[in-house]
């Protein structure tokens, strides 16, 4: 942990206890090194959606930070995840983003693996190899754990990690609502990928805990009438392990309820959701949140005038460096929705949250500006001589949870920084190897 001492963690903790965060933790190289050792390998990371690998042999390649991952559906229909590297001498195995094939051949020395990860072909097997090569021992290395919830695939490098559903905790209730509402979703097209300036924690927090930024960062869309302006009320819900969700609802049940989804889906919502979830969805405007550490999601309404569409945008903030993130952005639509609606919803996604989207453009500009202002000594000084802390004070010690909120978790009414404060605590808990507690209520 090199340069980071107990003293540093104590100071971070003290700042957090006052609703603050030392700004140096965003870009510090020692924090970044420790995050790669203790935060990312020990948590569940999103790998994809099962609709991306629909048939035997279908695969996608992904990254868990810097670990290359091959997600592939085997001939037996099972989805597996492997380190996307040839075990012989460590060559990146599959260089394609996606595809369908029965076997994967490493070009270096010509070993071949099947869609179940088994070593099935060894070049010149009989001429150069004898009994020293036991094929069964040289299959692809599995990602230690792969589990799924509502079709969302997650992996972790920690064999001893709690089961995914335990890690998600009450987030499962909201995933039922977001992803399971109509009986299943599908991914539309390959994800958008682009590289932005920013620290992954800040990007995660932007979706998961910061609805406050919308009124200013995205004011242009309000000025133009692209973002619907209606009377809404909102809650921020703190969930365990750094997860969180923000729920906004219309005060009146809108004329077109259920986020203006097509009527054909409504009976499915009633079938797949319990009455409390269904009522929440009936009035819902925007649901936006995140699953720590690197997955965020937003289920908004977007479009112009009467043509507002709902979609589910999933985001992976893949950290490349402390000040650089590769964004992966998927658009999911209800599988049972009419094709025309799916197409229109995808277009609404591109126009709003895609890399050319009117909402997206201004967010990336802000994250880049934070990085531009984080390189100087007044930010990096770990003794906090310059009071170099950033502000998570909204609602701190003032706003009480709202017991009338119908969903699980600790729900605060209106605008608060409760989720970010909880996320920071869980992050510190992992970073200190459990020395700092951080179960995660704000």
């Amino acid at each position, binding site marked *: 942990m090199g340069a980071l001492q107990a003293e540093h963690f104590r100071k971070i903790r003290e700042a957090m206890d006052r609703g603050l965060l030392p700004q140096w933790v965003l870009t510090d190289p020692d924090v970044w090194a420790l995050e790669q050792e203790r935060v990312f390998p020990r948590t569940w990371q999103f790998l994809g959606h099962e609709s991306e690998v629909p048939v035997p042999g279908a695969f996608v390649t992904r990254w868990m930070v810097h670990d290359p991952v091959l997600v592939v559906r085997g001939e037996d229909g099972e989805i597996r995840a492997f380190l996307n590297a040839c075990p012989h001498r460590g060559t990146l195995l599959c260089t394609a983003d*996606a595809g369908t094939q029965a076997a994967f051949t490493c070009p270096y020395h010509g070993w071949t693996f099947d869609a179940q990860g088994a070593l099935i072909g060894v070049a010149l097997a009989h001429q150069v190899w004898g009994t020293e090569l036991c094929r069964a021992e040289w299959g692809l290395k599995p990602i230690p754990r792969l589990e799924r919830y509502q079709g969302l695939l997650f992996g972790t490098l920690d064999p001893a990690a709690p089961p995914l559903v335990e890690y998600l905790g009450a987030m499962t209730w909201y995933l039922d609502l977001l992803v399971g509402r109509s009986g299943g979703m599908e991914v*539309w097209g390959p994800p958008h990928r*682009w*590289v932005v300036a920013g620290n992954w924690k800040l990007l995660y927090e932007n979706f998961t805990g910061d609805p406050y930024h919308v009124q200013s*960062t995205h004011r*242009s*869309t309000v000025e133009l009438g692209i973002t619907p302006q209606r009377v809404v009320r909102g809650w921020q819900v703190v969930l365990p392990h750094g997860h969180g969700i923000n729920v906004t609802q219309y005060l009146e049940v809108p004329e077109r309820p259920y986020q203006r989804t097509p009527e054909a889906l409504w009976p499915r919502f009633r079938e797949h959701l319990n009455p409390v979830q269904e009522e929440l969805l009936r009035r819902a405007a925007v649901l936006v949140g995140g699953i720590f550490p690197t997955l965020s999601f937003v289920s908004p309404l977007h479009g112009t005038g009467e043509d507002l569409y709902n979609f589910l945008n999933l985001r992976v903030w893949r950290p490349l460096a402390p000040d650089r993130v590769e964004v992966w952005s998927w658009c999911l639509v209800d599988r049972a929705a009419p094709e025309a609606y799916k197409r229109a919803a995808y277009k609404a996604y591109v126009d709003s949250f895609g890399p*050319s989207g009117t909402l*997206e453009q201004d967010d990336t*500009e802000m994250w880049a500006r934070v990085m531009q202002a984080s390189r100087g000594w007044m930010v990096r000084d770990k003794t906090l001589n310059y009071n170099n802390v950033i502000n998570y004070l909204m609602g701190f010690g003032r706003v009480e949870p709202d017991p009338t909120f119908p969903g699980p978790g600790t729900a605060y009414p209106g605008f608060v920084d409760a989720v970010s404060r909880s996320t920071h605590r869980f992050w510190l808990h992992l970073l200190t190897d459990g020395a700092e507690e951080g179960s995660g209520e704000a």
Partner: protein
Amino acid sequence: MNPEIRAAIEELLYHEAYLLDHRRYGEWLDLFTDDVVYRMPVRVTRERRAGSDVDPTAVYFDETKASLEKRVKRLSVRSAWVEENQPRHRHFVSNVVVRPTERPDEYAVRSYFLVLRSRGSDPDVDRVFGEREDRVRHVEGQWKIAARELVVDEAVLHTINLAMFL
């Protein structure tokens, strides 16, 4: 190819680049026909035998004249932060090839593009590059762009956003 037509179409592309680099978006929009289709599909990395690496289902842009106008309008409002302070763009267009089409008033125009953007004093330069396949039509004595397909060369874009036009 008639060299005069070829020269006029090349001139159109260079003029377009100049208008974009100088934020003359109103005049830029006038270079497109009312029925223009402006698309930028997603490029992916595939195995050679898996066929085209341009994915037709996914796009960065899928625009009509009306939606291009809306994007221009958004960039002009005071709180479009991405335009504040005005980043500097440079649109390079080269390797222009003009071919006749089945329509006597329309030509297929292929060109290469490289767009660079400098934001504030940030040393990071955003870049987008690839190939354009345009349809250029002669309308009432003027050459206009009736369709544009942008095939980008990166599967992971190195621009913090696509707030610029390509």
